[in-house]
């Protein structure tokens, strides 16, 4: 069987050696061929075993401080070399800003077709068939790549990570790469990690509670966070909220924020603008609390409450706590 290259992102929350979206990619890769992990940075035996547990049959590893210090291009050069060695059936990369930049440059270098933001990937007679959600989530499109090595970026949560029953010991292939000068054009001068909120990551949270402008004030936003904590949820915000600096941009959901698809999405004081819907329409269950019965969000809600969120949410938090005992 032919290899399917997966660009692995290291260092997940809770001490996992690999981020969850990469495990999803390894799971998806098994539908098309034999997953081969491409790892940038130092790699130890435990990580190799962990990757094998999710189906990797080969590991390409490249280690150089340049991979963290310079943006994008070093990783492209690593992947291009892995493609040369493995002649894969496809290359899978996580659909986040860095992943898209890497995939875009790789596609140019391979003169290969590229599809981004896949919500599903399946094997097909003429290569992988990729599902995307387009036009602000209003349409589903299935397409495939007909030139070169398919380069596909896949959204987080496109699959549930699954372990394999009988992992094989992957061959570890070190990639000696000679970085070009071109690869050193964009240097990270400073990186200030953001303090962890202690709440789940928006990208892979099962439940998200989002507050909009209707929350009214930055201090009042606390009620959204309290509900999130009662539900074990991540906290989201609309652009109105991040524009007003009530909450930081990394909490924004929508066209210019994150795209999410949790099991439960609770929107309070959110009108339901098209750009917001674009980022959350794929949620399994949608609950809305809004005082305006005509708010567009109600057209998408499985359960809607017309009312003042400052009355409904505190009462809901009490109810939840009562039920928890």
């Amino acid at each position, binding site marked *: 069987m032919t290899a399917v290259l997966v660009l692995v992102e290291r260092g997940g929350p809770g001490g996992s050696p690999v981020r969850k979206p990469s495990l999803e990619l390894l799971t998806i890769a098994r539908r098309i061929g034999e997953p081969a992990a491409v790892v940038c940075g130092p790699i130890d035996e435990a990580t190799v075993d962990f990757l094998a547990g999710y189906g990797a049959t080969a590991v390409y590893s490249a280690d150089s401080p340049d991979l963290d210090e310079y*943006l*994008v*291009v070093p990783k*492209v050069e690593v992947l291009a070399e892995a493609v040369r060695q493995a002649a894969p059936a496809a290359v899978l990369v996580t659909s986040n*800003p860095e992943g*898209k*930049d890497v995939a*875009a*440059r790789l596609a*140019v*270098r391979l*003169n290969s*077709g*590229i599809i*981004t933001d896949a919500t599903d990937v399946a094997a097909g007679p003429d290569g992988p*068939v990729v599902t995307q959600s387009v*036009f*602000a989530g*209003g*349409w*589903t*499109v*299935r*397409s495939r*790549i007909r030139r*070169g090595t398919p380069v596909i970026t896949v959204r987080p949560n496109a699959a549930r990570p699954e372990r394999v029953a009988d992992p094989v010991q992957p061959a570890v292939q070190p990639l000696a790469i000679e970085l070009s000068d*071109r690869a050193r*054009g*964009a240097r*990270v001068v*400073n*990186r*200030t*990690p*953001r303090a962890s909120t202690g709440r789940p990551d928006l990208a892979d949270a099962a439940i998200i509670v989002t507050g909009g402008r209707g929350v009214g004030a930055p201090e009042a936003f606390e009620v959204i966070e309290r509900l999130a904590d009662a*539900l074990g949820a991540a906290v989201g915000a609309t652009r109105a909220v*991040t524009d007003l600096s009530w909450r930081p*941009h990394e909490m924004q959901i929508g*066209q*210019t924020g994150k795209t999410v698809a949790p099991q*439960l999405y609770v929107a309070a004081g959110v009108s339901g603008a*098209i750009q917001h819907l674009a980022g959350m*329409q794929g949620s399994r*269950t949608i*609950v809305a*609390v809004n005082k305006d019965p005509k708010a567009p969000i109600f057209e998408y*809600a*499985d*359960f*809607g*409450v*017309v*009312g003042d969120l400052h*009355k409904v*949410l505190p*009462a*809901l938090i*009490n*109810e939840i706590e009562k*039920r928890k005992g």
Partner: protein
Amino acid sequence: MKIVVLVKHVPEPTAAWRFADDLTLDRSAVEGRLSQLDEYAVEQAVRLGEAGVPVEITCLTMGPAPAADALRKALAMGGDRGVHVLDDALPGSDVLATSLVLAKAVQRIGFDLVVCGMASTDAEMSVVPAMVADRLGVPQASNAAELGTDGTTLTVRRETDSATEEIAVTLPAVVSVTDQSGEPRYPAFKAIMAARKKPVQTWSLADLGIDAADVGLAASATVVEDTQPRPPRAAGTVIVDDGDAAGRLAEYLATASFL
């Protein structure tokens, strides 16, 4: 400093979009406009000039005849001149072909910096900046929330999922900017009138030395197999709060096993 801003004419985001028979977006059916996310790119280019670096701003678009409107809007916002790549062979081009055409046009214009929006509001792939950068052989930083330059280096601040990053990019380079970078100006009537007199050149594929067989739908490296509207969501329950809504909502969440 020579700045090229890539701008796209896109269908109005609030209109009902549909697919044409060839499974591309039917652009004739809806009103178009300059992509709102590209307005941030024009704004940043103009602001770099206002911050003291002498700039010459060329706005570049590729698209059918109405795309010229997007160029005029960008010029009204402060661009100095426009270039419109217009050719009957272009419709249906995929991102590889689009990035090829844009890169050739940027090269012909000459550049120190190419500024793009963070995504188009129609295709939303966000890959054109990196692809154009790769074709031009220059570095690129995406999703800048703040830009600065001394004429030889571009400094970028950006917010990733986990960190705030400061990046130094050696010029010439490509950058994309987010909608956090600063509200685009609303051109005054005088600026709109002045924009009508600014030079706009129209280039064909032949002008760029590109073979028509390398672009358009037939040359696309991707093919659409089928398209389907998202099934309408089953109508939900909407209740009006009479003091008991929280209890009923909790009951709903418990039944769905969320509690």
